[in-house]
């Protein structure tokens, strides 16, 4: 039972690292995506640039980042920023494509009704891009949940700590529990996102 408490604590820590990163990646991706779509010549640069972030190996990034932003290697903030960057790498392109795919006729209709460009973005384009944005967000969510574990190597507590400890001490059960919990967490969060989408976008159900 002490183990259960331990695992629960690590699950909490895991969420504390991943949820802010997922949210930040989502929110930051929107202005970047909008910029990319409005500045057509810059589109390739913005999308390519953020996409390239994903090619950076995760472990070195966790170690280099503190030098750039002045945090400690084991700071929660360090891990969250790194995870946000990886999330952005996936989300900016999804968001740009999602916003770009909004039906041109609908966009024109909104303009003809007298929406300002900003009003049209918030009240028409963003909601209509919702289902595609959600699809992107689900990928980011799963990927972030699994990526958090890497930070355990640095000594930051998360479900990943079950792998590192388990390996060091040769406890197979701990490694198995770590894997099971990570998968479970990813699935639960995914389910939550799907339900949230149903709630916020009742019109998208056919």
């Amino acid at each position: 039972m002490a183990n259960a408490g331990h695992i629960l604590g690590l699950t909490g820590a895991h969420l504390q690292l991943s949820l802010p990163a997922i949210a930040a990646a989502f929110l930051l991706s929107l202005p970047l995506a909008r910029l990319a779509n409005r500045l057509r010549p810059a589109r390739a640069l913005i999308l390519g640039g953020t996409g390239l972030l994903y090619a950076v190996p995760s472990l070195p990034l966790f170690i280099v980042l503190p030098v750039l932003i002045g945090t400690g290697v084991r700071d929660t903030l360090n891990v969250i920023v790194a995870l946000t960057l990886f999330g952005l790498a996936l989300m900016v392109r999804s968001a740009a494509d999602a916003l770009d795919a909004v039906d041109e006729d609908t966009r024109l209709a909104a303009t003809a009704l007298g929406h300002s460009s900003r009003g049209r973005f918030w009240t028409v384009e963003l909601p209509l891009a919702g289902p595609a944005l959600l699809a992107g967000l689900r990928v980011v969510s799963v990927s972030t949940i699994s990526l958090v574990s890497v930070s355990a190597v640095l000594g930051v507590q998360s479900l990943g700590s079950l792998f590192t400890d388990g390996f060091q001490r040769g406890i197979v059960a701990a490694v198995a529990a770590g894997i099971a919990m990570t998968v479970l967490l990813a699935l639960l969060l995914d389910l939550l996102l799907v339900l949230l989408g149903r709630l916020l976008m009742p019109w998208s159900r056919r």
Partner: protein
Amino acid sequence: MIEFERAGKTYPDGTVAVGEFSLRIPSHTTTVLLGSSGCGKTTLLRMVNRMVDPTSGRVLIDGEDVAQEAPVALRRRIGYVMQNSGLLPHRRVIDNIATVPRLTGMPRGAAHERARELMRTVGLDSGLARRYPGQLSGGQQQRVGVARALASDPNILLMDEPFGAVDPLVRMELQRELRRLQTQLRKTILFVTHDIDEALALGDQIVVLQPGGQIAQAGTPEEIVAAPANDFVARFLGLDAGRRSLRARPQPGGGWLVSDAGGRPLGVLPDDPAREGPG
């Protein structure tokens, strides 16, 4: 009154959509722009609400150049209906109709009240208010489109092939409704179509367009049918194919069978065409 003063539009890629177009559209009448695909109808229509800015000439509403007006404010006081209705798929029927009143700051309750009133005006069952556009038939969607365009009680209504995507029966029904509405509301309507029958059914004035937004002929439906200005207009009306030179033949049981010059039957006329016929 809407006036086009030598208005022209050349798109950035060099396409001359409209060369030079001048036309006066009297208030409280329906003017139909009639022409085949690509002749510049949509471009002309959008010059009125500044979705397209002319590259030469200007467009005036009641004597004021629209270029002087902020586009967003201008669009809110001009109704616009497009093909495939252009409804916002994520908003319920009632919210779609209430869009412009809400944009101009009307409280939600009042805007919904107004939307319900408009649903009655255009003959929409109030039970449809909470549906999403995807849950309506094409004809119903177009009615919502018309209701939405009328929501802020605009003086001007721009309609771009609004009934182009519905079947012929529904289309005629919608045309009849629009005529009925127009006798009540007396808006200044600029209506785009490539369907000659629709133009004849709706227009007080018909403007037949050639490619490049060139006016082939402008006049009342009677003038255009009776005296087409040139071969292009005659061809467009189907006059050369004899579609509109009608023959009436007495039927054995009484009444007349009316057909076109090619012998294609068009309908029947009751017994005494002199008294009950259209003449």
